[in-house]
Structure formats: C-alpha cells, structure tokens
C-alpha cells in the first residue's frame, strides 16, 4: 500500500470547499469520475506547457529590430489530477524542463505556482495501464496532497484540512480497495523492456506494428508526458516568437533545412514514439516516459494500441 493510512476523513462538501479557495482546475479524467464543480483541462501539461505561448515580441522600426522579451508569468493554480497525471509532471516534465541546466524559465515559473493534488483511482478502466509502467492508482508520490472518495466521504492526506480519523469500517473499505486493485492490476512490463526495445530498432517488425496508424497528432497532443515543441515566428515586420506543441507523428517534425528528412516514412515516426517513451527516456532518466494513463489508447481514431506494440517488440526479444 502506497498510502500512509494516517490521513483524515472529511465530507465531500468540505473537501470541495477547501479546493475552491483559489484558482482551481481539474483534469478531464478527474472531472469524468468525480464531477467536481471546477473547469477541466485535458492534462496538467495544458497548464504547465500551454499549446502556444509568446516568448518575445518584435517589430521593425527606425531601420532596426525592436525586440521585447516577454518574462515568464505564473499565477497560483491548484490542480487536481489522477495519480498517473501527477507522475507525468514529477517524473517526466520536471525531469525534462528542470532536470538539467539551463532550466526552462517559463515552465519553472508555472511549476512553482502549481499546487498539484492527486485523486486516487478506485478501479482500472479498459485503457488504464499505470501499473505496467511503475505507477499505482493510489500513489501519492510527488503530489502535494492526496484524496480518495470513500462511501462515507473523502479520505485526505496532506496539510491544511482537518477531519476525523478513519473509522474501522473505513479502514476495512480502504484495505478491500487495495486488495481489489492488486487483483485487477495489469502486470508490469519486463524489467529489461528499455534494452529490448533499443536492440529492436533495426528489426523488420516495425512496418507491421505501425500499419494502421494514421500519423495524426491526437495521441501526442493529448498525452500528459509528450513535451516536444516547435518555435515559430508569427508575423514578418511585427510579430512574436511563438512556442507551440509539436508532434513526432508529423512529417515536418524532423524536416531539415537541406530538405533531407531522417524520418520521412510513417513507420519511422511510430517507432520513434514508442522508443522515446519506452527506451530512450527510461535509459536516460531511469523512469518510463509513459505513465500509463491510456489517453492515447482511448482517443486514437483507429484503436492503435501502444501497449500491444510494446508487448509485441518485447515478445520478439524474449
């Protein structure tokens, strides 16, 4: 059990009131399961790394370029997310944008202003696979507070909320939930998965695996960990340098100025998505670049399933 069990129980109303003391958002997953009265965002990424933001403005005047950097801004935000989405921030996004010098000042400012809460999950959806990649539906790792809906109210771990200790029936409910989740949890990928995938780069299985994928950006844009971005100038004599999300699924993602494209074939782009999440990122940072939220599986227009792809490569290696 990842929970300390030392939390308190409060009513749902008291919990919602405590949440609403500031600018509060919830992720779509939380909104769908918990129906809180707060606006929803697709994933924490939408708050920390907006789909487009201006880094500086420029204009041409008096025969010279005038450039005005736009300093990072951040307003305090409280975000309630599922444990996998919290993991996406602490394990992947933080490692990428804050892990090495120089840090990304825009991300850093927003991250400092973010209070991130985890709402535990009581069941696995058909698309869920957090336990396959080292997560857990009741994990409070990295979150500023943890909450879990019980039949009698909300179980709460963290600071700032006073409630009563757990009654024995609630302790039993919690234990039963843990046991139930243990039984239904998808088993983890083999320990050597990143190495297997790395070795499989040149094998002839990828065409087959990638077949069916439309090469749209639905999976990467709605993924909580996909962080790739592009910089583009908008405007000619007056405009701004814009940072926007980019997707490794798009052919222009790797197009060189020479017009050479190292990933001109759709299969190469699908392979890159799998290997980045399940091989390169874990080999470098020690954790999978996927948190198993299953949004890419649920939202794929053709039901292309990343779990099956990884399984297939691993089974070829074994």
């Amino acid at each position, binding site marked *: 059990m990842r929970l300390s069990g030392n939390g308190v129980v409060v009513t749902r109303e008291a919990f919602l009131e405590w949440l609403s003391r500031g600018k509060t958002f919830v992720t779509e997953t939380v909104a769908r399961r918990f129906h809180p009265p707060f606006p929803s965002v697709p994933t924490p990424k939408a708050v920390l790394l907006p*789909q*487009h933001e201006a880094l500086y403005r420029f204009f041409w005047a008096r025969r010279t370029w005038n450039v005005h950097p736009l300093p990072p801004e951040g307003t305090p935000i409280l975000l309630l997310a599922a444990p996998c989405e919290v993991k996406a921030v602490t394990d992947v996004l933080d490692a990428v944008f804050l892990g090495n010098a120089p840090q990304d000042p825009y991300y850093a400012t927003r991250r400092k202003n973010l209070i991130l809460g985890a709402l535990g999950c009581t069941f696995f959806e*058909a*698309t869920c696979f957090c336990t396959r990649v080292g997560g857990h539906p009741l994990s409070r790792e990295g979150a500023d507070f943890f909450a879990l809906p019980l039949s009698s109210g909300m179980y709460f771990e963290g600071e700032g909320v006073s409630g009563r200790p757990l009654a024995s029936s609630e302790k039993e409910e919690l234990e039963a939930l843990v046991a139930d989740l243990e039984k239904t949890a998808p088993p983890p990928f083999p320990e050597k998965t990143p190495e297997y995938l790395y070795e499989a780069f040149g094998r002839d299985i990828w*065409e087959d695996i990638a*077949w*069916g994928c*439309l*090469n*749209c*950006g*639905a999976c*990467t*844009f*709605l993924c909580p960990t996909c962080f790739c971005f*592009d910089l*583009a100038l*908008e405007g000619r004599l007056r405009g701004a340098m*814009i940072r*926007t*999300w*980019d*997707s490794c699924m*798009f*052919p*222009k993602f790797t197009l060189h100025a020479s017009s050479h494209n190292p990933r001109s074939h*759709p299969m190469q782009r699908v392979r890159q998505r799998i290997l980045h999440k399940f091989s390169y990122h874990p080999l470098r940072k020690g954790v999978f670049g996927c948190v198993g939220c299953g949004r890419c*599986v*649920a*939202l*794929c*227009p*053709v*039901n*292309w*399933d990343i*779990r*099956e792809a990884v399984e297939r490569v691993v089974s070829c290696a074994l």
Partner: protein
Amino acid sequence: MTLHDAARKLLEEHKVQGVLGYRKGSLPFRTRPYLFRDPCEIEELVFTPFCGLNLARYLLFLPQGIERVAIVAKGCDGRACVALVRENRLRRENLLILGVPCPGMVDTRKLAEWEGLKEHEVTLRGGEIVVRGVAYPLASFLDASCRRCRYRSPLVYDILVEGGEVPSLPQEDTLRELRSLPEEKRWEFFRKELSRCIRCYACRNACPMCYCKECFAESHKPSFLHPSPTLRDNFVFHIGRAMHLAGRCVECGACERACPLGIPIATMFLAVSDTVREHFAFEAGVDVTAPAPFVTYREDDPNAFIR
C-alpha cells in the same frame, strides 16, 4: 455469399493479395483496420455498427507487394473508392470492392456515457439497438452523417455480400436545425466548436479524400497559417479543407469520428456537399464518369462567372 466466405475465397484463389477489413479492437466496441493476407486470419474479420473508419483511406498507403486488393466497403467507403478512381489515385482493375449493406454506424461517444458498459451488453436487433436489455431506436445512437446517409449499400461493387441486416431508416436532414438559426448564432456555433480544435489533424488524416503529399496547413513556403491553434488559424484550416473537399467529400463522417475532442466537424463538410448537390446536381463518388463540377469547363455554362 457471406462476407467471410467471399473474403476467404478471394485470398485462397489468389485473386487479391490482401483484404482490407475490420478486426476486433483492444477496447469494448472498438474495431480497427486490418489488412488480411492469410486466409486463416479471415475468422477475425468483423463487420459491426462500430466500423466507422473509412477504409478507402488505406488504399493509398498499401504496403509494398500488394498489387490487387479487396476492400470491405459500406456505402461511404464505396463512394470514396469511386471518387479515388475518378481522381486517378487508384486503378479500378486493381481494386475489388466487397460491398456490405450498412446498418449505420453507432456514435460510440453516446455509448461511452454508460458507465462500465461491456461489449456484450450491446446488441443490434432489426432497427433497434439493445443496451443492457433495453431497446432504443437505432437512429438515436447513429452518427450524424449516418442519419442523413443516402447510399447505405455501395453503388459500385464487384461482390455484394448477403445477409447484412439493413434497417430502413428515415433520411433525416441533420443540418436543418443549424440552418434555421440566424447568421450570428451559426457563427457562434462554429466559433465555440472550432476554438476547441487542437489541430492534431486526425480529421484530415482519417479522410479518404485528403491525400495531398504536402497539406496547405503544414506548408512553410508559402505559409498559409500559423502553427498555434488560435481560433483564427483554426478557421483557416477547417474552411480551407472544406473548400478543397467541395464536390469531393463523400459524406462518410470519418473526420468527425476521428476527432479526439468530439468536435462536430463533419457539419461543415456536409453543408458544403449539400451546396454542391443543390447547385451542380453532383454527388462525389456516385458515378465514375460524371464530370466533376470544379474541373469541368463548358462554354455554354449557365453561370456567367464561370464562363
């Protein structure tokens, strides 16, 4: 002949190197496209009211070594095949159309609202869909583009499969409500919907008629729109695509089903198709020989602005 027998026979007799069809997906209700190459695999071929993807899209991206291919085609897939042959994207003799009468495709988002619904709890019975033992009229679950469908069975086919249960559904004008609104309200509708677009291009990539090697949306030189999905640039993208598909859209609604955000994007394309039908008496993918309205020049054209 049933769908399985026909497909198996084609592969066994080496009439085709592959059969493009649907296979059960990894999630409840979902199906996925699959290229069947081995007659032993045909057992896995399915055709259910959850096969909303337009398979004709894959005809343009076949793996190497596939010369002649059969495609499991409902009415709209068949129309897309005809339209692609018209535009010289495909050779008719390399294509074998396995026509299946279509019962209409279910909007899976409506079913997803039932919590914990399992696949076996949904069945189709005549003109009704039975969910957890309660029968509902199929029309209440159908996709908007299926509710207004004119051609449920393919018009052009090589083999027409028997036994498909095709409930007769009234053809409904799904755009009537929107059309009756004043201009500002319609503008408001599109503003609201398109402001949600994240420009993942799923709609474009799922479209069987969007096959440009370089899409205007991603062109850098010249650049038609900025990469950031602001409302303005979203309008440029979607209106631009609607213009490119005028007289070419086969009204399958695959774009709308592909949208991960559930934006009713087909509305725009269906409206454009209606306009083309009204002014040019033309429907894309219906007749291989009919002249296409926007590439045909006639000196006696009744419209002066074209002459």
